[in-house]
């Protein structure tokens, strides 16, 4: 792809810890991507509306509060409802291994757990983005 990859980094729910989201946003910027960062306290509806208007290639969500099982699938569901089928959905945060399978089945393509290097995420995005 000879245009920058557009990535939405979102913090769904009430969790206020944004160190990870901010570090990733910067790393993606340094890897040549255009990063739209929504800030805190996003509802699934807001995230999806943003993804649509910004026509992003990737939606990346970060949750450390344990509310991922409710919020991640909700975002995937809403994207589907709006006919958005060409976006790579990924997530990260404090997510127990046990929950990962369920999230993948709900449409989150990959989960990045604590300790994952940003270089791995960048590689993953570049290899898995769906659009040209």
């Amino acid at each position, binding site marked *: 792809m000879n*245009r*920058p990859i557009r990535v939405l980094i979102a913090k769904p729910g009430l969790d206020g810890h944004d160190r990870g989201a901010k570090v990733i*946003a*910067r790393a*993606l*910027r*340094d*890897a*040549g*991507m*255009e*990063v*739209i*960062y*929504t*800030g805190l306290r*996003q509802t699934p*509806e*807001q995230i999806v*509306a*943003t993804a*649509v*208007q*910004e*026509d992003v290639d990737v939606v990346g969500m970060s949750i450390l509060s344990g509310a991922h099982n409710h919020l991640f699938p909700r975002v995937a569901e809403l994207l589907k409802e*709006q*006919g*958005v089928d060409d976006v790579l959905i990924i997530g990260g945060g404090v997510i127990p291994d046990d929950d990962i399978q369920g999230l993948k089945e709900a449409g989150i393509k990959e989960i990045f757990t604590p300790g994952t290097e940003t270089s791995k995420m960048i590689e993953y995005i570049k290899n898995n983005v769906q659009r040209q």
Partner: protein
Amino acid sequence: MEYKQLVEKMLIGDKRACAKLITAVENEPEKAEKIIREIHQYTGNAHIIGITGPPGAGKSTLTDKIVKALVSEGNKVGVIAIDPTSPYSGGSILGDRIRMQDLALNPDVFIRSMGTRGYLGGLSKYTKNALKILDAAGYNYIIIETVGVGQSEVDIVKIADTIVMVMVPGLGDDIQSIKAGIMEIGDIFAINKSDLFGADRTAVEVNMMLDLTMDMDRRPPVVKVVAANNEGIDELVNEIKEHIKYLKESGKFEERRKNNLKLEVVELIEEELRKIVISHTDSENKLDSEVIEILNKNKNVYEVRDEFLKVIK
């Protein structure tokens, strides 16, 4: 999706189609041209407001409040928020939306973030076309929000009908930072965070600089606002409307639009000409060898120019 389909959908209010069209004009020049040709007849209705000023002035928060005020009156508002692209990596963090996120769900609002992608002048090269799409989609006010600190970032003049220059007290440089170029492009000066100490002094300084600027048919108003508290917003929106009224009544609106269109056409011609010359002359290599000739005093720059231009003459 075929672009014609997208245009049809966009015209009836489909935000996803609108977004995809903006992506297309940003990335695919040939498609962009087709799209713009298709939508041209639907454009020309929007009033374009430029919001510019130094970083930290609170432009995004101000934009958010202006949009809310306009929407409450029944308008449809589009926003293009522009942030600088890193010259090293080609990437950017487009963070202006953060202060507008409760507008994300408003059906009458469309917000799009763009990186400058190496284009100097404070805007993205594709801002104009993105704007046309929003115009065609029925957003009757379109706000372009961008950083403008120096004389180079004034491309906003070529696009906007009304330019709001946002200043903030005590950012350090005060009168030094008020360079001549900026003073001339502001149609309205908004002093934000005016609840802070120093706001009055900033207002005085701005007025002083305005006094020194010759050739004004209309003296730009200086409005004090506190965007975070929603103070002064109604007054500012009023001034924006007054300005548009003034432009129309004085004939300047037509004049500006015509000038901007002229500039646009000329830019397009220049770009095409450059493409023609480059494609016909294998310029990279030829230029390298010609430059050596110039250095060796065998030729001068004008001779080389003429040789290149033989293609089109």
